[in-house]
């Protein structure tokens, strides 16, 4: 007779259930719920949105005021055992300045109680391409180098969950590219990676899934491309200075992608819902009307306004 067994699904590496955090009267994180599985997830939001508070709650450094935050099925608050599985890179860039890069990572390896801390240290430093600079004092490192040696320290125990708060801060384009590749490799090997950023382009390079957080609330979550489309298809406004503002305004009104035009002294404001169609039509229309365009400036283009739009939806 065949026996049937029912196995409970393993808990998600990171579970956030109706988590809130408030400091006095200030609500930093407001009733947020999500689960993270293996792969890279971006935590996107403007400065002060609550990203670091959320990361700190997941990392066990803030007690949720309400709700639950679990890592590997275990509450992260008051359970240092989660750090067997978790690597954390904080936004603050301090390191032990009197230690060399090698000694700094080695200290972290030894604090984790690894069997062969020296080998783990060498491997982690190689991964972040800091072997050449490993003998120098971390106090002499550039911001980007400090960031990389911090990442080496956070992965020295080979964690399966990696939490990174603004990890690319201070890195040059080549270092960003390398770190992106490294995080992709780690995600491909089955690790769960959550990284925060307030820069949309960083998400574009790295974030497969994205959590958009604004004012402490989860404004959007899911596939980055779908969210990016939402951001692109929102209403855009452009300020345009040209040799013949009124002539250009008339020509633009005939364009399908433009739904409103206002003329103000020596410039016009054009409003569109089709970003791509408008930006390709504008030079064509100007050329056909023999009008010179001196300046095209997007209005209301700050990240905060994009987030506000998402929240309003």
């Amino acid at each position, binding site marked *: 007779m065949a026996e049937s067994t029912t196995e409970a699904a393993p808990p998600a590496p990171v579970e956030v259930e109706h988590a809130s955090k408030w400091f006095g009267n200030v609500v930093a994180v407001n009733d947020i719920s999500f689960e993270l599985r293996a792969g890279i997830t971006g935590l996107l939001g403007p400065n002060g949105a609550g990203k670091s508070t959320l990361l700190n709650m997941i990392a066990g450094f803030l007690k949720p005021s309400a709700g639950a935050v679990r890592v590997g099925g275990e509450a992260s608050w008051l359970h*240092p055992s989660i*750090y*067997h599985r978790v*690597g*954390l890179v904080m936004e603050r860039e301090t390191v*032990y300045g*009197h230690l060399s890069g090698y000694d700094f990572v080695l200290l*972290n390896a030894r*604090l984790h109680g690894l069997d062969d801390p020296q080998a783990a240290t060498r491997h982690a430093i190689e991964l972040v391409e800091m072997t050449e600079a490993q003998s120098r004092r971390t106090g002499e490192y550039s911001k980007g180098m400090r960031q990389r040696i911090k990442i080496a320290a956070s992965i020295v125990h080979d964690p399966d969950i990696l939490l990174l708060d603004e990890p690319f801060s201070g890195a040059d384009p080549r270092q960003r590219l390398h770190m992106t590749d490294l995080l992709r490799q780690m995600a491909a090997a089955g690790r769960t990676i959550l990284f925060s950023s307030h820069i949309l382009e960083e998400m574009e390079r790295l974030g497969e899934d994205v959590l958009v957080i604004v004012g402490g609330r989860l404004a959007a979550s899911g596939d980055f491309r779908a969210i990016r489309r939402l951001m692109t298809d929102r209403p855009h406004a452009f300020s345009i200075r040209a040799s013949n503002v009124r002539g250009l305004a008339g020509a633009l009104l005939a364009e399908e992608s433009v739904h409103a035009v206002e003329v103000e002294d020596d410039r016009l404001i054009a409003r569109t819902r089709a970003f791509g169609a408008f930006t390709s039509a504008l030079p064509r229309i100007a050329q056909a009307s023999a009008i010179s365009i001196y300046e095209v400036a997007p209005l209301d283009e700050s990240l905060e306004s994009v987030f506000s739009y998402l929240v309003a939806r």
Partner: protein
Amino acid sequence: MIALVASHTLSQLLGQRRSLLMGLLAAIPVLVAVLVRVLAELEEDPREVALGIVGGLVLNLVLPLVALVFGTAAIGQEIEDGTLVYLLTKPIARWKLLVGKVLAAWLATTVVVGVSAAIAGATLLLGRPADLLLPAFVAAVAWGALAYVSLFAALSVRYGRALIIGLVYVFVWEATLSRFAPGTRLFSVRQYTVSIVEALANTPARFLDAQVDTTTAVVMSTAVVLVTGWYGVRLLQRYELRERS
């Protein structure tokens, strides 16, 4: 793991300008002892003179200040500059972190103050009968240092301004208030240390003038170590990354 945390903390405490300043502070009793030995005729019991001059300077000034600086820096500095996160993101019981930190601060304090007291005392007592005065004094200093650094380390986990609070404790509570309000002496690490010095040295120290009996001193100083240790561990367990008062 405790040894690793302690050695890491010692490298932080002793590798900086602060240890040089503490060395200069510890040199004061030695300088005074040399001056007294060279310039003054010592006709009284040399043990009492040594206890009065060196003991007074060490117990009133050098020990509490060195313990305050090392005790608050051991954890407080890591909280201040944000590096404590590297210790807290490890699967290590918080009591081991605290014990390692306190152990390092205690070792640094005991070595700096103990060497100062030993050299200054030896300068005054050289060639004179002194029994076991010096080892007894250094042992009492070590015991007092433990109570002080435990107290100051716990304060530094709780308060960003632990150094100022500690200065108020040393110079207002212990040095001033205890003269006018006898009840406050019961909560004075300085008084515990003085009492233990007198008991170990078996010498009536008229300049030191212990105000609490030896049993009370031992019980109370042990309680200080245990209670502040427990409190410090609890604070570390519930440590939240945000601004402190």
